[in-house]
């Protein structure tokens, strides 16, 4: 009886975590990209993932978004082990990347409708309209994406990632190439999503911006986790030192 109670409470505790990684490894062509990573992200947290180029941030994002499998270790999302075939799990993850992941010849509305329907949404049209208003693109909803500026394309990409209302938002360098107003818009959007209960993992190069936005910081150096602490307890200089080693 006691062991059942313990097991139930362990499951409940695991379910409170959006992401739980243990000994996570990724090896590509004999090169170790991620080396025995272990971390936990509670639900509803805003986490910044920092590291130099090649530290393994994007690889970790690709593993968490189920685009590529890990080479070893254990990974669970929302208390469930991650399996590449799990359609239900895919519905809970949204990835914003520096690549737009959009069809350039289609309009934002057509892109959003397509992805919404692929996620099995019945109200895809309504949701697309709502999101295009949220990212301030309602007046350009029917123009082809190829005519958009970098900022407008990125806002469309964010709307695409949010189309299926994911619980975990993986933002891989979402500010890359954006001007100041667009950066501010994306910052506000991510903040609003976090306040509405979404868990956010933000991979970023701007240390000060990351410390300002996120509640917790993870720093990767050559595939290893070298810092995991609340952002209020660490300075930009300390983070920079950890990144550079």
């Amino acid at each position, binding site marked *: 009886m006691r062991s059942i109670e313990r097991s139930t409470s362990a499951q409940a505790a695991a379910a409170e975590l959006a992401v739980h990684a243990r000994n996570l490894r990724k090896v590509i062509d004999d090169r170790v990209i991620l080396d025995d990573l272990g971390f936990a992200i509670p639900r509803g947290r805003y986490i910044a993932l920092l590291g130099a180029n090649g530290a393994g941030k994007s690889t970790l994002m690709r593993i968490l978004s189920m685009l*590529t499998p890990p080479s070893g270790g254990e990974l669970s999302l929302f208390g469930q082990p991650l399996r590449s075939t799990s359609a239900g799990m895919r519905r809970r993850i949204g990835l914003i990347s520096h690549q737009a*992941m959009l*069809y350039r010849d*289609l309009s934002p509305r057509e892109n959003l409708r397509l992805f919404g329907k*692929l*996620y*099995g949404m019945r109200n895809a049209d309504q949701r697309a309209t709502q999101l295009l208003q949220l990212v301030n693109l309602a007046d350009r909803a029917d123009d082809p994406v190829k005519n958009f500026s970098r900022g407008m394309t990125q806002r469309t990409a964010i709307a695409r990632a949010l189309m299926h209302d994911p619980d975990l938002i993986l933002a891989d360098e979402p500010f890359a190439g954006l001007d100041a107003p667009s950066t501010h818009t994306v910052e506000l959007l991510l903040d609003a999503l976090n306040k509405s209960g979404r868990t956010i993992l933000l991979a970023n190069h701007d240390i000060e911006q990351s410390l300002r936005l996120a509640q917790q910081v993870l720093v990767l150096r050559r595939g290893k986790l070298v810092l995991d602490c609340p952002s209020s307890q660490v300075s930009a200089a300390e983070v920079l030192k950890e990144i550079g080693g």
Partner: protein
Amino acid sequence: MRTTLSQILLLVGKDLRIEARSRQTLGLVITLGLLIVVVLGLGLGAEAAKGYSAMAVLWVAYLFSGVLCFEKTMAVERHEGAMAGLLLAPVDRGVIYLSKLIANLLMMLAVALVVTPAGVLFFSFDLSAAPLSFALIMGLGMLGVAAVGTLFAAVVSSTRLAGGLLAMVVFPVVLPVVIASTQLMLGIFRDGKELGGTGLAVLIAFDVIFVTVSWLVFEWILEP
């Protein structure tokens, strides 16, 4: 099953809409097909180009146009990481393969609708003896070529050797299709035989094997 079908229709519709809007592929491949017919027709000379050589020339036109179709439709997925967007969604990778195959096949058929009459006229090839057999043989042949081409286009598009490599990979693999369909048509149009026999069995078997195998292995070869 219903979800799978609706996802395939969605993705095929997406490919056709992109093509209708960009007009990048079809105009190019039809022009290429027509040029091949004309150049080979003139090159073969007036006598040699008469009649049955039309079948071989048409196959050359279909193959080169097809390869260009496969490259272009896969390039759309590679631009700005659109394929990664598809792979993030709860869509079976086999569904992505089947939708791409159908879109490619429809484009090849559109090319054939223009290039075939041109070839028939240019080579004075009399199709009236068995037009339905001709359509069936070419349709089965194109399905086999599209099945192989769609698979290898996905493989090749993620390498740096995309341009040109696809033709080198696809042509040797689809050789049985070209030989079987050409022999079948010679039998029908030159020798007056009925449609059937080993040639037809080879075409059907090739289609079944390559569509099934490609659908199954697509999951492992598709990189975002």
